[in-house]
């Protein structure tokens, strides 16, 4: 915890695609729109790179919510979005098995100018996490 920081603020990890969502997040900043500071954006070529274990490890480590901001069907990589969507489905299944709230992991499509959609997703996840127990949860 940082000195003087607000405790128990749930941390949101945003996996943002380099082609769409990351410049979309930049666009939000460029228009000086605000969103909670507990949302951390990580640039990724395509989130299809992450195996199921990555998401579960994030929750174990203390990440409260994950927004996978993809390019959706506009993904420049053939087959990547469908594979990603299927994988997120499987992660949700494993979250259920571990009694983790599946709304803590959400897949959405954000384009380079989707500022409203970006803000809505972050705000919704932030509000959701304030309601749920955001303490690190370990696999049984």
């Amino acid at each position, binding site marked *: 915890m940082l000195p003087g920081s607000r405790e128990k603020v749930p941390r949101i990890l945003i996996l943002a695609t380099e082609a769409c969502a990351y410049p979309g997040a930049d666009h939000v*900043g*460029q228009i*000086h729109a605000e969103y909670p500071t507990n949302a*951390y954006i990580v640039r990724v070529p395509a989130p299809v790179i992450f195996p199921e274990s990555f998401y579960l490890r994030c929750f174990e480590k203390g990440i409260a919510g994950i927004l996978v901001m993809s390019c959706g069907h506009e993904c420049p990589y053939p087959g*990547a979005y469908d594979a990603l969507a299927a994988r997120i489905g499987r992660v949700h299944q494993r979250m259920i098995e571990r009694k983790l709230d599946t709304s803590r992991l959400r897949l959405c499509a954000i384009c380079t100018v989707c500022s409203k959609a970006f803000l809505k997703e972050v705000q919704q996840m932030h509000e959701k996490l304030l309601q749920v127990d955001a303490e690190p949860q370990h696999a049984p």
Partner: protein
Amino acid sequence: MIGQSSASANSGEKKQAPRIGVYICRCGGNISDVVDIERVVQAASQIADVAVARQAPAMCSQAGQDLVTEDLRNQTVDRVVIAACTPSLHEHTFREAIARAGRNRYLYEHVNIREQASWCSKSDPQGATEKAIRLVAAGVAKARFAEPLSPIAVNARRHVTVVGGGISGLRAACDLARAGLPVAILEKSPFLGGRLVQWDRVYPTEQAASDLLRELLNEVAEQPGITVYTRAEIVEARGCVGDFQLTVKRQPRGVDDTLSPEELGAAIDACLVRVPSEHDFGLSQRKAIYRPCRDSYPNAAAIDWEHCTRCGDCLKAAGGKGICLDDSPELISILTGAIVLATGYDLYQPKPGEFGFIDYPQVITLAQLERLLDPDGPTGGSLARGGRPIQNVCLIHCVGSRQIEGLHEPGLDGKIHEYCSRVCCTATLRAAAEVRRGLPATNVFELYQDIRTYGRNHEQYYEDAMRAGVIFLCYAADQPPLVLKNPASGGAPLSVVVKDRLTFGEELEIPADLVVLATGMVPRNLDPIIDRLKLSRSAEGFLQEVHPKLRPVELAVSGVFVAGTSQAPMDLAESCSSGSAAAVKAAALLSRGHIELDPFRARVDRDRCRGEGKCVEACEHQKAITFVETASHGETSRCAQVNSALCNGCGICVAACPHQAIDIAGWQLAQFDAIVDALVADYS
């Protein structure tokens, strides 16, 4: 010290601990006005393996870059973390700086604390500072794993596609062709020239726009390397810089050039369809088979398929030849190395009732006035409306520009246009002086907020208008002029009421025969091409360059450039400069015949690979992963192998491997795990 040390970060291999330099940019206050930079520097200096943590007013400046290169040269650091603006802006800048210092340019991590910390958290400086600290820590965590990489050289197609056949697109195409590059011009409409064909004379040279266009079109015609596709739109875009694969849909023209002028005239006369003429901004009508003006290029007419009823009357009138009403659109494939977007602008369309627009036929836009003043225009240069001579003309500036949220209603596009359209002041002054010169008995009133004649020689138009007797009245943004029906019968049909700031708010009522609304430039709807090429728009909706000063014609997608008014309001001279700038950048990019791409490609750890083939099954990109047979100790086994030239670095193979035997160079899973660890770590 906080964070994981290099010993565990490098799979147990005994290596010298990394010496990471963290450099934090104040960005001239863009970051430091919100983020407590001193606190970030202090926190960064406490992170394990950080050798130095420094700050600078502008890291991208020469002085800022020198901080990094000096530390690299004297071996204080061996890898670099820059916390500054978005990587799309300066990642390349710092890679080059690192290379100049003799180090591998990929021993570097960029952290975005401007767009994604200070600018999006202005009301929460403490939160923004904490976020910046964690983002820097995450950057350090990723940089620990950074390794020297070599860019991949790929062949680049020495060909450029210019989208848009207006003045900036034509200028770019000519300059590219002169540089020896084949060029395809894709123009959505059936004719080249863009807005230029709609103007009579243009400032600041007062040259006839038609002469200017003819000169440019002659240049195009003289360049064998330029191929023009009219009625052409990109419907699909694949590939990347150096190797874009465009699918272009081309609508048929419907009319070929075998018709004589008489036959074409007969065909046009025979058409019964009438639609408002785009060329005359709705002041006249045209047929479904049409040419916008005498000097249009190509010289052949075209059929407006949206309104054509395919009755065949034109074909009969033309003697049954030269016109085809049955053609279908064709799809053509263009392989190109770079793209220049010169897609132009739209003019603000006033809402019905806005300053009396639509409600009163005597209210027109500045563009319509230009058409009326054109001797080749719909009225042969006459301003008279309904046979009534024009005694008083009121020109109102800033219609649809410099709007204020809460004060102005959104326009027909649902947006408030807060920006200044820049070119309208000079254009309005020019038109006002022309009216005075052509109709000395006509009183001309300019109702303005500010006169912004910013360009070279533009101020001369202000002086000319004053000398010509144009009367200036200054209104406040919150007290715009009112355009009303004149209750007095027999006089001017309209009355314009304005509170003049030059006379300390005196309310004046001007009988007006004609009211002209100086409407500004607004961005075109470019959604399809923005989606296909993954581009960014500015807050105003124009195409967003990477950096307004340092990379003014480059878009965030490598190999895509912007020219002219698709970027922002600009006049003809600026549009030409912009087109030339885009051409030079594209030519420089492709001139070597190859391009260096980032080496972020899949690679196989042969010690871990068991040849199960999950990655081969998962790869959907041109079979970039195949099996190879390997022999070891007399036994043959198979192992995955990546063709880096085909791999697109998507990482679909990475998650597919149950043995973690495949990874993306520069984007290793271990790096992402380290990032997560850093984001959740305790920094107290």
